[in-house]
């Protein structure tokens, strides 16, 4: 894109003569759209002038008079890596930016104070030195109160959160208990229905199940386990006792084929469907159930 400048006598640029002149000079492109582009803006940067001025205003003073330090930020605590964000991203990232300034100040403080100590100048204010401060006492009191208030807020929020969680947990536990009760009720009714329709012959669902049975069973097993013979004795019994080894003995003997313990009439000989002879009155069952509840 060729840019063409205003003529010195400020004629209209769109006039034919101007265009012809520009084309003759070769400033116009032969194809495409010619758009006028403003000349790039020149920014003044008078380096020599600035350096001269700097020399003029420079004072030859001791460092203790000026107290200026130029340094890099101190390395961040823990990791020794500097964040590599520069310019725009750093300016937008508030936290990192402030940290960088803080570290720069820290480095300066460490260097500056050590230099002052070398010159024998006292830097730390003693405890009994009372003087006017930049901010008044009243203001500092307000600041302290604000900080306390913030801490208090955080604590309150934590407490409220814990309470909410506890309530949620309690609610959950309550729901679990209700669900369990409903389940038990449902199971009881189903068992009653089954019994009514003759699918079950025992009334064992009326008794309090599970826990108590388990306890009794466990007790029995425990008693047996206490009076067991020694392991070595058990092994010997298994190998040689009660008529010797069972491994290579006969399987289909007269005794084994006449064994009827694994025969169940209901499964093997009962009619498919329900057993009609086992009907019991509903009222009896329900009354027992209600009393149980």
């Amino acid at each position, binding site marked *: 894109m060729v840019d063409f400048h205003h003529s010195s006598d400020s004629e209209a640029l769109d006039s034919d003569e101007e265009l012809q002149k520009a084309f003759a000079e070769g400033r116009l492109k032969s194809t495409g759209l010619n758009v006028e582009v403003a000349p790039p803006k020149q920014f003044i940067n008078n380096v020599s002038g600035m350096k001269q001025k700097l020399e003029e205003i*420079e004072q030859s003073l001791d460092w203790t008079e000026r107290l200026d330090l130029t340094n890099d930020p101190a390395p961040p605590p823990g990791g020794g890596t500097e964040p590599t964000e520069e310019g725009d991203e750093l300016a937008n990232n508030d936290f990192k930016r402030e940290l960088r300034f803080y570290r720069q100040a820290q480095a300066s403080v460490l260097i500056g104070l050590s230099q002052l100590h070398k010159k024998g100048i006292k830097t730390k*204010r003693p405890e009994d030195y009372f003087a006017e401060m930049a901010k008044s006492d009243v203001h500092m009191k307000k600041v302290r109160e604000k900080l306390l208030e913030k801490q208090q807020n955080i604590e309150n929020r934590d407490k409220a959160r814990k309470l909410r969680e506890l309530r949620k947990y309690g609610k959950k536990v309550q729901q679990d208990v209700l669900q369990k009760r409903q389940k038990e009720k449902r199971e009881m009714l189903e068992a009653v229905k089954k019994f009514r329709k003759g699918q079950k012959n025992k009334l064992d669902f009326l008794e309090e199940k599970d826990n108590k049975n388990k306890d009794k069973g466990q007790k029995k097993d425990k008693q047996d386990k206490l009076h067991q013979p020694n392991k070595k004795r058990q092994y010997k019994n298994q190998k040689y006792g009660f008529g010797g080894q069972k491994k290579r003995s006969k399987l289909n003997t007269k005794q084994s084929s006449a064994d009827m313990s694994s025969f169940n009439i209901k499964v093997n000989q009962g009619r498919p469907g329900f057993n009609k002879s086992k009907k019991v009155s509903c009222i009896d069952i329900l009354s027992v159930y209600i009393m149980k509840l």
Partner: protein
Amino acid sequence: MGKRKHKEISTNSDRVSSKKDDNEVVLEPVVNSDEPPIKQTKWTNKQRVLIFSSRGISHRARHLMIDLRTMMPHSKSESKMDRKDKLFVINEVCEMKNCNKCIFFEAKKKMDLYMWASNCPRGPSVKFLVENVHTMSELKMTGNCLKGSRPLLSFDKAFDEEPHWSLMKELFTQIFGTPNHHPKSQPFFDHVFTFSISDNRIWFRNYQILEEDGSLAEIGPRFVLNPIRIFEGSFGGATLYQNPKYVSPNLHRRLLRRQVAQKYVNRVQSKKSLEERKPEFTYTSDVTDDVFVTIQPEDSKQNG
């Protein structure tokens, strides 16, 4: 607990031995009580800064100015300058007050704050746009320092890289640094001014030195300076440097408004283009197509 001023009163009345090192104290055998006691050390670096503003300044800028005056014991104040006076009048004001440095705040449209920092009789001056002003009295600034204690000045390494930054650094050192043994200054070192360069701007922070190992708390104020131009003379003269990345706040607002307006303009344009693109007839239909349509018996039943 009350805070009272604790002045250091020296009992050295020796004037003859001024040629010796000022820290050395040599008492004469006979002391006259008529002679006033001379301060043990002399204030040689005579920097006086005039801090004032123009009319139409906002409350935040005014508090910033007051904070700067509190922080710098070598500063002098002046009443507001009328805006119709030209800027070189400030040089005369400075001379009248016997100041050799000046910080001048200018507010335009009650929104934009500009700051001039200049070396008064002959030296360079810089114009800045001040952004992100936070004053000392904000409750998040928890630090405190002695009023008038000398600050340590901390500059970013980037100040040494370009000549315009070095010039500004020298100017800041002379303006913000409290001179040694200034009569209003306090002896100990408990705060540090930080000047850093980020995003082509100068960020100013003021920290209190809590412990000698480097833990700091911010005192305030804090502001950001966006350099506009450096002039050769004080409040005038040839331009030495012009910031290419500077966008005036007016232009900035205009661009923002244009972006928002662009949304509306786009919508109007798209509506217009839809109207133009929309055809009047979806498809061509011939009127004579109806001629040979035979009426079905069901339809005739409705009529008849």
